[in-house]
């Protein structure tokens, strides 16, 4: 006699294949459930109609031409950082230092604009600050990469700490260049001469940032997909031993990849100072170095997919600001909604990768037999 073994109520298996259609059905379904949960929270905690709250969030991003441009600007900045981080993470190099690498670019650009802003033509200044920002970002990423390649130090802690070092150096220079004395602010740099400010294309202040983001995204897509470098870093990501076995110099790939990441983060810093904000503060990077990690992961390191995941995050944060203005709600309320939606979106990845089986009732099983 065969002993009947009790089958667990739920068991989980890893999916082998999932069709694109099902994948997206799970994703969209999770967003829909998230919206319903948010609606319930909204109704329970405020007396507002959730649909008008959603409508207001939509208006926060697409309500006027100015808001659409602001959305595109935010998306572009976030996208470049996410795209920059993609090769590091694909190589399984946990680069949490995107923020610090951006700040290095911010500081380099600001330094150029303040120190030589009056003495050379604006065009030359733009070129010099561009080179300086990229070099600074690359240098800031090179340091942890070098230590990793040489002595196998922990890159997660190293890159994380480099963020704080960069922020403190920026804080030092803010005190050095503050106006008026003691205020802790440097204000807009070269506001009256606009020296070193990036040109406005076709009357649209943020168009240049958008164009640069598109170019960077395409380049990264090609780099990861079709170049030898891109292949090598994914092999290093799978296994250092395999990479060594097939003759890849792991240390070289790590350093090369991180310099590439740093260059693009430096580029972002340059865009922030010379292109959009024209100032330097310790909060200018605004946590995008971490947000970019999430954007990149959500898109499985596909630069084109990052446009979508980045859009979702920017849309949510713009919407959160809008509902606090429209309904007088504390901005934390918008953060709660954002948190719920992200929880479901990230949670949906689980259901894409794994299948959940429920125990079938025995009667039905018997009937099947």
């Amino acid at each position, binding site marked *: 006699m065969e002993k009947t073994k009790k089958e667990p109520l739920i068991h989980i298996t890893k999916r082998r294949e999932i069709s694109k259609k099902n994948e997206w059905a799970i994703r969209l379904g999770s967003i829909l459930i998230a919206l319903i949960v948010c609606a319930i929270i909204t109704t329970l905690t405020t007396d507002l*109609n*959730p*649909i*008008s709250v959603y*409508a*207001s969030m939509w208006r926060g991003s697409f309500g*006027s031409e*100015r*808001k659409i441009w*602001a959305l595109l600007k935010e998306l572009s900045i976030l996208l470049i950082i996410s795209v920059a981080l993609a090769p590091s993470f694909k190589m399984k190099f946990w680069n949490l230092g995107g923020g610090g690498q951006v700040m290095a670019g911010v500081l380099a650009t600001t330094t150029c604009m303040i120190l030589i802003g009056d003495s050379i033509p604006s065009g030359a200044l733009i070129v010099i600050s561009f080179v300086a920002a990229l070099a600074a970002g690359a240098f800031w990423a090179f340091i942890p990469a070098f230590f990793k390649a040489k002595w196998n130090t922990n890159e997660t802690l190293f890159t994380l700490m480099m963020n704080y070092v960069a922020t403190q150096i920026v804080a030092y220079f803010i*005190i050095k*260049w503050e*106006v*008026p*004395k*003691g*205020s*802790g*602010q440097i*204000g*807009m740099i070269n*506001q009256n001469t606009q020296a070193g400010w990036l040109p406005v294309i076709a009357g649209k202040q943020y168009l240049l940032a958008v164009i640069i983001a598109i170019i960077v995204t395409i380049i990264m897509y090609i780099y990861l997909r079709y170049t030898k470098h891109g292949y090598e870093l994914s092999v290093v990501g799978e296994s250092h031993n395999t990479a060594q076995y097939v003759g890849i110099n792991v240390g070289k790939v790590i350093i090369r990849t991180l310099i590439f990441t740093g260059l693009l983060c430096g580029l972002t810093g340059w865009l922030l100072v010379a292109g*959009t*904000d*024209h*100032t330097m*503060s310790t*909060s*200018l990077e*605004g946590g995008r170095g971490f947000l970019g990690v999430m954007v990149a992961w959500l898109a499985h390191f596909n630069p084109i997919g990052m446009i979508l995941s980045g859009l979702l995050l920017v849309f949510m944060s713009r919407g959160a*600001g809008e509902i*606090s*203005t*429209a*309904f*007088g709600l*504390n*901005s934390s309320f918008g953060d709660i909604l954002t948190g719920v939606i992200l929880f479901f979106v990230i949670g949906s990845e689980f259901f894409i990768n794994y299948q959940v089986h429920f125990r079938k009732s025995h009667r039905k099983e018997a009937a099947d037999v």
Partner: protein
Amino acid sequence: MKKKLIALMIILAMIMMPMLAACGGGGGSEEPAGGDEGGEAEAAMKVGLITLHDENSTYDKNFIEAFKASCEKEGVEPIIKTNIGEDQACYEAAGELVDEGCSIVFADSFGHEDFMIQAAKEFPDVQFCHATGTKAHTEGLANYHNAFAAIYEGRFLAGVAAGMKLNEMIESGQITADKAKMGYVGAYTYNEVVSGYTSFFLGARYVCPSVTMDVTFTSSWYDETAEKEAANKLMDNGCVLISQHADSFGAPTACEDRGVPDVSYNGSTKAQGPNTYIISSRINWSPYYEYVIESVKNGTAMDPDYTGTIATGSVEILDLNEDVAAEGTQAKLDEVKAGLEDGSIHVFDTSTFTIKGETLGDDFLADVDSDADYTPDTNVVSDGYFHESEMRSAPYFPNADPVDGINLLDVAF
């Protein structure tokens, strides 16, 4: 399958119905379309406010509450954007407020200034009013204005209340006259802070000649832990009375824990320190909001700078705590306040203080026109006193060296 379809239809209908209702004008958030109504009813004027934080900061709360009250009184529609950083976000917020039809845009934080100026240049038909800024008088824009108040008078009065308390402590034998040392938790070594603690100190010395003061800085406008620790450090150093400029409840709660009297700022902290709170001073922004709204309604031009005073109701001392304050404080405050108003008392009377042993002479220059080299450019001493907040609204009391009697503990910030 049919059942599924029907269920889906019901869900869809449930989602769509309120949406349609909202589109039909039921939603409170819909903007009234000004131009489309053919001018049958004059739409209310709209006024925008940009704040750095929200009501959780005492500083921003003071702006937001006065703003709401003034808009209601003037019959205009307020639109408030909170948590706007001191970067391009401020320019964007200003632009959005203009898009929504605001005729006036206010901003409350010092770092918003350059971004407000940028917006003011782009939208010449809208008035941009920035509190605490320094550049309106040099920018030369007709639609950009700075505002502040002669809060040094309020600080001076709060200082008088502190001095009275010290006298009481000396008379009761709790401390000797030479131990009458106060502590002050400052934010930055910025002129506004320096002007604040100096006037507070001079107010205390007005009634208690032996007083001295230690000042420490937190390098942040809002950092509850740092402010609490700073207050504790000062008390450890022998300070017997504390006051502060920074915006959190850190210093008042530290004082309450140790039973040391505290003079507050921006609003009463009696709830945080019922046994130690003496008095507070603050700027009431309502007179300024109402002045600007009425000026725009009447089409009258405004000066680049506005400095509110005790007379305009902009400078307030509030909520004297009789349980803690020395006897006769209210009477003394009334007397000094009258003296400030009729001009018989000046806060920065040059015969009452020295800097590095020197009395400020008529040739003394202050850095009134902000520049990167901090060049002293304007004569600010005449008729025997330092003219604070007269050449521009924001304070410019010199921050290089303190008035004798004040000891700066850490000036690395």
